[in-house]
């Protein structure tokens, strides 16, 4: 196995034993990036020189026998939705094309303190809105298993750079499935933690009550390592949980006795690809052979998941994205052109003596807002801002937003009931494997249905993981999703690791 194909924890052992250096590692990944990122386009920002300088410093400290952070010189890719001090943070949006944060997200700070080497910032759907990374304002990322296909999204760059061997660890975010779905599409392991497990401070908000930062890696152990580095209470995030963080890597190899898995009937209905169904049922059998018992159960409100999600998430987004107005930072429309246009319009209306339209003509300020936002946001972002503005408007709030909050509670109750009987809910991560680039761009609803099996977890605020569990005949990865009780990531990771000890799907790499 080449260096860049190996799991991060494996590399860390060699780093600690000084069999390899951080500089060697960074160089190896940089070489992969040089060779393949032209094709994959996983990174929005790269600074290999800075990464090498950091790696050198870490190697020197290790050589001098100084204390070493948990990640000891491992490169980490960061989704471009987390603020990085002094490094452009765009959220793959034109509106933030020139935004350089003056501060680090808490997760970024923790990574730095743990001696991670930040290798680059990864591509994504604009403001994390989408399931294919095609909504990036900059370029589309491709799937390393089939570059005519999407890597999934919104953390498409995060998953693709792992699969392509361009980074050993990756940070993503998951609002409706944005870690798990690309992990499934790209054949890697991705964990969405319980809401509140990881600080959101410095994560550019899409839907605040749903967003959560999580790890992607080749194995459950990689995810465990990264999660224990970034998790924990943060006084800067009122919604972060004040609970101790288990050492996930330490307990990972403990096998789970008497494991009870729940198969949700609604996850095996119409729309599920037959190859995915077969692979998932096979994975369940694998668990049974490891001693697990399986129970079929129903989550009657799961069918409302997409509808509920597409009210709550856009509502919050419409508010969170109001700040991008061209006044204080970020993209601003060409002011002179805007003022000239406005003056011309005014002249025209005056000569036409159209008093009514004259009275309705924008003030320069309103026009600045309008044009900045019209030019700065992409179509999917605008669609969701409009949806959310509508659902929060007077007269519609009760029928949409308030109703959605009530259904959200019912969805959580479905989970609470399920977890009275089983330890984990298990099923497919996605209804279908990675689709072709452009296949769904004209059909937003079809794209939204990508989140069918993942959104309910965000609505319920719980944790889940996607692990590779097979391939379609055409060679596309398939993901198995396990969902857990609140803050039960320790056992979730143990269950995933148990499966990965018994199977080798997670060891497969695409040939590029």
């Amino acid at each position, binding site marked *: 196995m080449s260096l860049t194909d190996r799991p991060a924890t494996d590399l860390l052992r060699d780093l600690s034993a000084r069999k390899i250096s951080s500089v060697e590692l960074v160089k190896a990944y940089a070489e992969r990036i040089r060779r393949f990122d032209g094709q994959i386009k996983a990174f929005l920002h790269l600074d290999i020189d800075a990464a090498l300088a950091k790696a050198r410093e870490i190697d020197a400290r290790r050589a001098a026998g100084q204390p070493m952070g948990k990640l000891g010189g491992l490169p980490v890719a960061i989704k471009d939705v*987390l*603020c990085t001090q002094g490094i452009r*943070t765009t*959220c793959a949006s034109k509106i*933030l094309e020139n*935004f350089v*944060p*003056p*501060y680090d*997200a808490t997760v970024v700070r923790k990574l730095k303190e743990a001696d991670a080497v930040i290798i680059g910032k990864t591509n994504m759907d604009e403001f994390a809105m989408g399931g294919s990374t095609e909504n990036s304002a900059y370029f589309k990322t491709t799937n390393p298993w089939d570059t005519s296909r999407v890597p999934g999204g919104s953390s498409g760059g995060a998953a693709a750079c792992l699969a392509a061997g361009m980074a050993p660890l990756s940070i993503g975010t998951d609002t409706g499935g944005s870690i798990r779905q690309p992990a499934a599409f790209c054949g890697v392991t991705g964990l969405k933690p319980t809401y509140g497990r990881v600080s*959101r*401070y*410095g*994560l*550019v*908000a899409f*839907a*605040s*009550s749903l967003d959560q930062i999580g790890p992607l890696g080749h194995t459950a152990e990689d995810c465990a390592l990264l999660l224990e580095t970034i998790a924990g209470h943060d*006084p*800067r*995030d*009122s*919604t972060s949980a004040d609970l101790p963080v288990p050492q996930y890597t330490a307990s990972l190899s403990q096998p789970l006795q008497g494991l009870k898995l729940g198969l949700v009937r609604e996850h095996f209905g119409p729309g599920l690809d037959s190859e995915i169904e077969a692979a998932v049922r096979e994975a369940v059998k694998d668990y049974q052979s490891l001693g697990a018992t399986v129970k079929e159960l129903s989550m009657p409100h799961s069918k409302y998941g997409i509808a509920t999600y597409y009210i709550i998430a856009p*509502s*919050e987004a*419409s*508010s969170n994205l*109001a*700040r991008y*107005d061209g*006044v*204080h*930072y970020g993209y601003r429309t060409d002011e002179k052109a805007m003022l000239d246009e406005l003056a011309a319009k005014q002249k025209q209306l005056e000569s036409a003596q159209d008093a009514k339209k004259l009275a309705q003509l924008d003030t320069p*300020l309103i026009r600045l*807002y309008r044009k900045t936002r019209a030019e700065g946001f992409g179509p999917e972002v605008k669609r969701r801002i409009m949806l959310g*503005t509508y659902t*929060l*408007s*007077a007269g519609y*709030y009760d029928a949409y*937003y308030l109703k959605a909050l009530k259904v959200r509670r019912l969805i959580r109750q479905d989970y609470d009931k399920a977890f009275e009987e089983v330890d984990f809910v298990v099923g497919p991560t996605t209804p279908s494997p990675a689709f072709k680039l452009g296949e769904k761009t004209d059909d937003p609803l079809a794209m939204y249905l990508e989140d069918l099996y993942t959104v309910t977890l965000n609505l319920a605020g719980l944790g889940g993981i996607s692990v590779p569990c097979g391939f379609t005949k055409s060679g596309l990865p398939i993901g198995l999703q396990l969902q857990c009780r609140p803050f039960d990531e320790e056992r979730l990771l143990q269950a995933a690791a148990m499966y990965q000890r018994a199977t080798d799907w997670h060891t497969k790499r695409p040939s590029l």
Partner: protein
Amino acid sequence: MPDHPYDLIVGLETHVQLLTDSKLFCGCSTAFGAPPNTQTCPVCIGLPGSLPVMNREAFRLGLVAAIALNCEIPQFTKWDRKQYYYPDLPKGYQISQYDLPMSQKGWLEISDPKGRFAAKKVGIIRAHLEEDAGKSLHDEAAGKADSRIDLNRTGTPLLEIVSAPDIRSTEETRAYLTELKLLLTYLNVSDCNMQEGSLRVDANVNIHIHTPQGKIATPIVEIKNLNSFRFIERALAYEAKRQFDAWQETGRKMGDPGTFKQTRGWDDAEGVTFSQREKEESSDYRYFPDPDLCPVRTPTAEVQKVRGGLAELPAAIRHRLEKSHGITPYDSDVIVAQGRPLVDYYEEVARIGGDGKKAANWVTQELLRVLNERNWSLAQFPLTAAALGELVKLVVAGEIEITRAKEVFNDMVAHKRSAGESMAALGIAKVDTSELEAICREIVAANPKIVADVKAGKQQAVGALVGQAKKKNPNANPNDVRRICLEIIGGM
């Protein structure tokens, strides 16, 4: 009876900045007057990814004020986003409280020592916390519109106190605002400094016109930008008349099709209100719960703790001063209006001087006169309460007569010395009774015409003798001189 055929109906929305060191959702300073945009951080300027964290001290101050305003404190309250676009609102929304405010249904009692209105309770509909916006500075000099934004104020904690429309006159309006300001400053909740914008008032006003068919209400108008109590009084008086005139002209009343709540500003130079928003549409702020902040729970025990620790409130102090020191409501009002330090000062003067009424006279007349003349605060006043108390004590004991005491007071203030020292310096001493009698005999003997006048029944003629006695000894007490002279004349 009012000289106009209508009642004025006023409800006030008062915003006060809370006296916290730091902002409502971040650690930036709230100090006034720093160079623009120097008291900001990613949170209060709404940079992407930043998150608010509630300032517990701000919440506590809100609780103190709400409890003092006799409000109910719900056990559960939450934060909402009020959404609108403006350049001094960098997030595109203000964090406020919408349907579940931290307090509601209270009241504030107002009264008038001059008796222009009967004491009454003005209802408080709600008091809730919210963050302040920044300041827009519009510079339109040289014909070139140029706006600048200062975000130092952004995120400063505000308490918005909404009164019921229970206020019926400009006098009641002033009394309400004065009492509210006093209450909040006594509680150290706010400094209520209107010049610095830490107390801002919007008034909702209309009139109920008496007609043979009953009362007719005019459409409600909200007047904004009321920067001083005087502005408010003038604006309300103007607006009432304007609404009456408008009704006489158009007959439009509240609830008529096409009527709506109008927003008007006050132009003090012109002495008029002017329309600021003509459009019929009401703003839709799209309030919804802020997902970045947790709801706040206030257990009953916490409410009780705050209530138990509440400082003595102005109304209670007035009542106590009137009762225990026997002073008039007018005097208690004057003293309490100056703030707690003067109350404490007065009580010490009264205790040492041994006479509450006399102490009140000295404090409200002499002391406040000096403070006004010199533009001093009480802390700058050179005499301790004990020193002034000693002077009052001497006056009460008849050791010194009142005009001389005022000379002594001025000397004490000028030279920062005790009453005894000033009296010595001014040569003031109580005149020995035998000496005074000798003086009196002397002047009686020298003024046979006055003696004759007195004997003829013109008692007031003796007053001329008092002046002569004071010439012989400035310390001669006029009352004593008068009494002794009359005795002597009576014995003649």
